[in-house]
């Protein structure tokens, strides 16, 4: 397979990003693309390992060595088919996946993994461009009706799988457009929303029914849906954000990250945005609390909005530049990650706990922070404040990117009365079935907030179980 010496002959080459001064002026995608030859050469670096650690590391079980080989040999169509055999939406993961596969790639032992994510994106884009991805409705319909509630990546994947297996699927979305966090949470400079529409068009042409702007549990009752469908799949995400209950939290200018990001995404798409309540970073000193991906997205968005200054703080210690001995390959590397947004100009600080906010005229002006220390106690990290380190950070827009707790319980979940687990997510058994008959659940609503790729994998798993429940047996 491939070129066994590819990884020796060919150096790693990433497509790279647009120039900072250029990209920060718009919301277009930051990442560039390689030309076809270079892309195929990059694929030749894949060694078709006896143990493909990448494949193991991939939550959606991508057959990475197989499609890399097809790509290397120029069989884009074959590569696309192989890619789609495990992943419904490679155009999403190819753009925004943190690529655990690349962390596990054998060549990453030397820090030069195969550019798996980029290869993936290249394959699927080529496949769209060449018209390889066409609607292919199932030849036979089972007549069974499935309602998938929530159209984030998990819901989309489940719906797509079930539709392909011949069931009659309706995808419900409370917002006016499908995609969930994919559409409203992730900034356009990382994921162009056209990709979602493009995929949706295919899915609808394959017979998927989509109902947007209907919030099940509010606009229509869950019970009603249950009555109309043979099964229901809950894919409502984990939308309940973690909050900070500290003094001054009520001050103006302190927002949840997701509220902030959603607005900009809506604006970009020309959707209704609350102009009176517009959160914008323009001219502001922005503080992002939380060092994760969402925080980073806030950083990039704030910069594009013309923030005067952006600071991001994190309560955990600064990750090391290189893997530590207890975080070896092939596990996901817990090292310092610098996103494109960080590159665009942001001050980052670690070991800082936010203890309060102060402001004038009801508007926040400062965050009060304190340094913390971490140590290992009985195998887990334990935090303690460092006395005498309290100080203030000047900020008039503060974005809370502290992660998500669990699905929103109000509405659908409480109406249906599904049992929750101890993390207040929806409890499911080994077959992804909830406590209610014929109700299944998938994605973040079950697992808590996680990666898009994990959500897709979860959606596929749920679809297989639902299909089995419906005695289809058509999903392998």
């Amino acid at each position, binding site marked *: 397979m491939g070129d066994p010496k590819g990884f020796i002959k060919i150096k790693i080459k990433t497509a790279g990003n647009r120039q900072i001064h250029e990209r920060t002026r718009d919301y277009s995608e930051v990442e560039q693309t390689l030309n076809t030859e270079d892309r195929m050469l990059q694929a030749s670096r894949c060694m078709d*390992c006896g143990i493909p650690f990448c494949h193991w590391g991939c939550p959606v079980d991508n057959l990475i060595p197989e499609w890399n080989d097809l790509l290397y040999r120029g069989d884009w169509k074959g590569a696309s088919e192989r890619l789609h055999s495990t992943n419904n939406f490679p155009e999403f993961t190819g753009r925004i996946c943190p690529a655990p596969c690349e962390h596990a790639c054998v060549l990453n032992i030397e820090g030069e993994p195969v550019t798996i994510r980029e290869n993936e994106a290249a394959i699927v884009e080529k496949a769209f461009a060449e018209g390889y991805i066409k609607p292919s409705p199932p030849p036979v319909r089972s007549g069974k009706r499935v309602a998938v509630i929530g159209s984030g990546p998990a819901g989309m994947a489940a719906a797509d799988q079930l539709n392909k297996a*011949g069931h009659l699927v309706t995808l419900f979305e409370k917002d006016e457009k499908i995609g969930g966090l994919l559409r409203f949470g992730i900034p356009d400079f990382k994921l162009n929303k056209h990709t979602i529409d493009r995929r949706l068009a295919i899915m609808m042409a394959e017979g998927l029914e989509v109902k947007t702007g209907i919030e099940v549990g509010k606009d229509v009752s869950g019970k009603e849906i249950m009555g109309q469908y043979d099964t229901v799949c809950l894919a409502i995400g984990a939308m309940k954000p973690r909050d900070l209950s500290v003094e001054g939290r009520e001050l103006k200018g302190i927002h949840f990250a997701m509220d902030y990001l959603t607005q900009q995404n809506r604006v970009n798409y020309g959707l209704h945005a609350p102009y009176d309540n517009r959160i914008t970073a323009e001219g502001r000193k922005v503080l992002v609390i939380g060092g994760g991906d969402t925080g980073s997205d806030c950083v990039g968005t704030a910069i594009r909005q013309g923030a005067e200054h952006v600071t991001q703080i994190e309560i955990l210690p600064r990750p090391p530049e290189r893997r530590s001995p207890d975080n070896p390959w092939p596990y996901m590397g817990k090292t310092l990650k610098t996103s494109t947004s960080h590159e665009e100009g942001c001050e980052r600080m670690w070991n800082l706990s936010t203890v309060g906010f102060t402001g004038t005229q009801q508007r926040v002006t400062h965050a009060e922070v304190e340094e913390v220390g971490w140590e290992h106690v009985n195998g887990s990290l334990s935090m303690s404040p460092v006395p005498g380190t309290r100080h203030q950070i000047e900020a008039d827009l503060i974005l809370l990117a502290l992660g998500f707790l669990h699905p929103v319980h109000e509405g659908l979940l409480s109406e249906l009365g599904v049992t929750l687990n101890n993390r207040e997510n929806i409890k499911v058994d080994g077959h992804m079935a909830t406590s209610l008959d014929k109700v299944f659940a998938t994605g973040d609503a079950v697992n808590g907030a996680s990666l898009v790729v994990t959500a897709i994998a979860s959606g596929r798993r749920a679809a297989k179980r639902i299909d089995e429940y419906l005695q289809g047996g*058509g999903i392998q």
Partner: protein
Amino acid sequence: MRKWRPERTGLYRSEFEHDNCGIGFVVNLKGKRSHGIIQRGLETLVNMKHRGAEGSDSKTGDGAGVMIQIPRDFYLIQGYSIPQEGQFGTGLVFLPRDPAEARKCEEILVQFVHDEGVELIAFRDVPRDNGTIGDIAKKSEPLIRQILLGADLPREELERKLYIIRKRAEKFVAASGLKEKRYFYLPSLSTRVLVYKGMLTSEQLGEYFLDLQDSRIQSAIALVHSRFSTNTFPSWDLAQPFRMLAHNGEINTVKGNRFWMEARESILKSDVLGDLNRIYPVIEPDKSDSASLDNVLEFLVMSGKSLPYAMSILIPESWNEKNPISPELKAFYQYHSTFMEPWDGPASLIFSDGRYIGGMLDRNGLRPSRYVVTKDDLMVMASEAGVQQFPAEDIREKGRLKPGKLIMVDVQEGKIYRDEELKAQLASAHPYMSWIKKNMVSLEEIQTGNIIPPGLGEEYNNYLNCFNYSREDIEMIIKSMAESAMEPIGSMGNDIPTTVLSKKPYRLFNYFKQLFAQVTNPPIDPIREEMVMTLTGYLGSLQTNLLDKSPDHVKMVKFKSPVINNTYFQVVKNLRYKGFSNSVIPIHFDADEGAVGLEKALDEICRRAEQAVDEKNNYIILTDRNISRGKAPIPSLLAVSAVHHYLIENRKRMQIDIVVESAEPREVMHFALLFGYGASIINPYMSFAVIEQLVKKRVIQQDYDKAQENYIHAVNKGLLKILSKMGISTLRSYRAAQIFEAVGIHPKVMDRYFKGTVSRIGGIGLEEIAEEVLIPHRRAFASGEPPAVFSEGVYAYRKNGEHHAWNPESVALLQWSTRNNDYTKYKEYAALVDRDTVRPGFLRGLLTYRRNPIPLEEVEPEEKIVRRFVTGAMSYGSISREAHEALAIAMNRLKGRSNTGEGGEDPGRYQLLENGDSTRSAIKQVASGRFGVTTQYLVNADEIQIKIAQGAKPGEGGQLPGHKVDRIIAKTRYSIPGITLISPPPHHDIYSIEDLAQLIFDLKNVNPDAKISVKLVSETGVGTIAAGVAKASADLVTISGTEGGTGASPASSIKHAGLPLEIGLAETQQTLVMNNLRRKVVLQADGQMKTGRDVIISGLLGAEEFGFATSALVVLGCVMMRKCHLNTCPVGVATQDAGLRKRFRGKADFVENFFRFVAREVREYLAELGFRCFDEIVGRSDLLMLDDSISHWKIRNLDLSDMTAFFPAARRFPLHKVEPQIHKIDDVLDRELIEQSRDALEEKKPVTMHLPIRNTDRTTGAMLSGMITKKYGNQVLPEGTIRARFAGSAGQSFGAFLVPGVEFYLEGETNDYLGKGLSGGRIIVVPPPGSTFDPERNIIIGNTVLYGATSGEIFISGVAGERFAVRNSGAIAVVEGVGDHCCEYMTGGRVVVLGRTGRNFAAGMSGGIAYIFDEEGDFDYYCNMGMVELSLVEEKHDRKELTDLISRHFELTGSKIAEKILVSPDLYIDRFIKVIPYEYRKVIEERKLEEIREKLAQVEKDVEMMGDG
């Protein structure tokens, strides 16, 4: 009653036994009888006693015997009233020990005597003295009487009657209810010959039978045999000679030969023998392979065939275009090949009917057979030269049998018949050529315009799914074969569960494991020695009586390839040639009826096959086309084997051939199985359909025809390889030979459909077999879109695919724990691995043990346990220097042992490093390539390991691709950088068990301090082989499981050859203990050892030492890329690429951590088991139990009780090594040499000595050389320091490992292995003074000379046998003629042949130069041009080198032919041919260019410097 051979105890089966031997005869050419001949015969035996073996009581021989002419006068003198010569017959009778039963047997015998109209003269008590024989022999000693018979009949008629009497009596007794019936046996019953034999040593034979000491017993012939049995329960009846022959070797195809013979009985008719049913079965049940061959030979002769005829059709020489025999003779062979499959396997045979006596070698000629004829009409032939001493001037001729050749003496006419004459007679007896021309048609030559396309149209996906084609089948196996005409190569062993343990459905094929040759017979080299191999077959046998001669026998279709495409299949199907007809039988079963339907369908198929025979069809076609939702395919293997056995049982198999049209076979192993169970031709239509798709999709960028041709070629090549692994040369003899063991199939299925194939742990029945077909069948025909094919993950890990023991988690955790020295993390790793093991991933996972905990402190310390650990034999070359040295350092620190692998060792590693670490490998491996096996290498060993086989590819040679051979590796291997290094499949000095004993003896002589170990691979009968190895004085035996192995190998070898470790290990332990041989050898186990649990379970099964290879590499960074053979290892472990080696991150410390962890874990287990030291648990299989908690649908009926059996013997005899081996090196001739060399050894003063030498003086010079090297290391003695002049016939391995400063000069002759491993010494062999025979026509040295020599010189004034200078890598040799395969695999040195050569010269030769005196101008015919080019000796440099060598030869030997050439060099030097390998020439030219470049550079530099000045 005590059985002689326990038929079945635990995993042991009596059928596993093998033997190899010393054979010989002495004959007076003129038929003059004397007692002296008998004495000479007995002497001959005693002089070959090193070729026999002793049992564990050191007194019981494996068997010895002698055949003489009937000494009629002797009985007259004793007062018996004996009729005249020819009307008198006699023979010994072995009788039950119980007097009543003995009497009963005599009565039965006499009854048949009378019944046949023969008169009983008397029973004579045979005087015997059992005072000297061993206890074991005594316990099974029969009562022996002699029966004297007479009849007034012509001799031939009486002879036949005696045969019939014997056969009838044997049959009758066997069917009787007598308790001791197994004692009943007649060694011979004849008017011509008389056989004395028993479970005796060579010396005991004459002492035991007092008759043999009686000078009144006289004979003109004495044919003798001494047996070396791997076989652990030798018995009196299996001693040789048999009724007509004695055999040294092994019939590898015996299972098939026996079946075919049985099948043939229905169609045999003989006028002279009358009703054959009286004497059937022709082949006596439960006897050895040699005995079966003897049975058939005797039958043919009794039915009126001549001895040479019978021998020639049973063991034909090869008759392809590479063999210079007449077309008439080829026709003779071809004609007979249509109805008698060869009894295949290396063999040297001697035979006699009292008038004729002769010898024969099989086509491979792997056994030596030397003879001498004296001027006073004595001829002596034996496995060795020098078994009888004659003054030089009395010798008329010295010779050897050549491969495939016969020699025979008629003592009545007093004439020697040579091969050409005998064969010419045979060939001209009938117009075979015209019979063939008229009646036989070649399939490949039939023209057809009707091309049948391969496509399956819309059915394609259904077939793919129904026959469970995985993506790997398509994209790895079929694609690779169709693209490159080769099977794909893999590395790093097999770590998926044995088929029966996997919950996934598999094809039935996967339950079978290939057997392969080890020790008792050599594998063949299918590439370099292809000339003996063929796949040719025939179709359409409407066989009639083979005893008749008729042109009709050859009314058949001949084919060269047994795998045919659709077009030719159509031809076969529609063939009406000469009235051919066939019957097409679908092999489907009713999917809804499951197992019941399957059984019904099989019955129906068998019935229809029988009907086809009755309707006189020529062949049946079993086809699985036209599957549907309701019709599921029967596994093709099951259908073929069921029909085959059904027809044999019904005596109808010979009349019909089986053709298979199946979608099932895709990889080589599948084809091998179908042929191995009786198919003649296979049309794998699905493979072709897949290829067509691949071509259409441009995945294969070749046209379809080429791709199809490649695929067929790959299958054929793979078949040859599988055949060769077992030492089988022809597909005809492989067909139905069933050379497999099944793992995990229930005996009920085996007994019914696969009769004769061993399956020892129970397993699946028809129900599971049907289910395995139906799972994919259901998928194929489920509603909706046909699903895509899967990535099954059989070859490379896939998440939802087959389970791999080495997977991301196990690799990651092992590396994590050992790098950080974190035992807790290691326990996580061990827990994960053990969980997978009991999944079950390995058989050992099904076992658990009894607990009886004691405090941990009481258990022996970790330090003691780690000493039991060794690392695997991986060469520096296959793995990087960094990895190799890290292993060595770690093992030396732990006092365990690392292994050089087959690649020599840089002497620099014998020095300690500055920090006190040592990179020296304690185990030095000696493998078939002998790379870098010098005297210095051997004396620096704590253990010398003879690698017979390796887990990754048992029965195959190794290969180090040129791109891995860099300068340093080439140096340690005594080869040239960039040139691919090939190890032959066989050790060319181990063709049999006594050869192995000889090699052990060689190595023990060179380094008496080292333990000698032998590495075997688990397979059916490995225990019996291990017993033979123990008897051959090995100190340690390693059993490797098939799962293990790191080496590169064809995918099918990795997956399908060899058995799981547990079965082989348990069998070995059981067999060794039963024979009380376990106490003498250490038993080591390897094969996917990963954790303490693996060690403990293996220990309980019998191992006391443990080998780790893969796990040790993983610790060093290996990530199971499985690309070792490509030199692209990305972690610097298995590569020589300088850039990649920089990526190596392993450290000796990690390895040390790993082994300490395992030991710590083992210690914890010992405490749990309740034992204080490891020795106490070795072999305690009574502590093992089946873990009931593990079960799934396929393992329900597994039965491991034979594996864990704990016999009474295990309570009596030691279960681990408790005493040293006896090596018998105290009185060797070298002791004398060393004594006389004292001045040289101590003060480097020159010494000269004169010594007589005999064939029993073996390995002369090795111990002396070892001692010199130990003392002086790299410093060499000055040339000529020790000069030893010998006179006589030297034994095997004369001058082995001789070092610089030592010169051996021998007047006389030598046996095989002269100059083995020559390491700088000089050897000269000349004929004895006074000899009158012509040295350049007479053989004076044996086979396999200079094997593995690295330097030194050898000058032979005379002719050598086969394989002169095989694997020579640096020695210089001049010789006056050679046999076949000269310079095989040579990688360096010079060879000058001043006379004729045999065939296949320079096969596999990749280095060095040979010069051949081509007086006849036909050398190119004899040369294998695969790797070499021929030229005249034109360059000045070459001419000088050649002339110098010939001059030296003349000076040292006084050779007449050298003189002739030197006198007129202008006339003769031009007749020399220079043989040089392409690759070697290229390297030499590059080197020259490099030198010139350097010189030029130097000149330029000089110029510059001058300029500066």
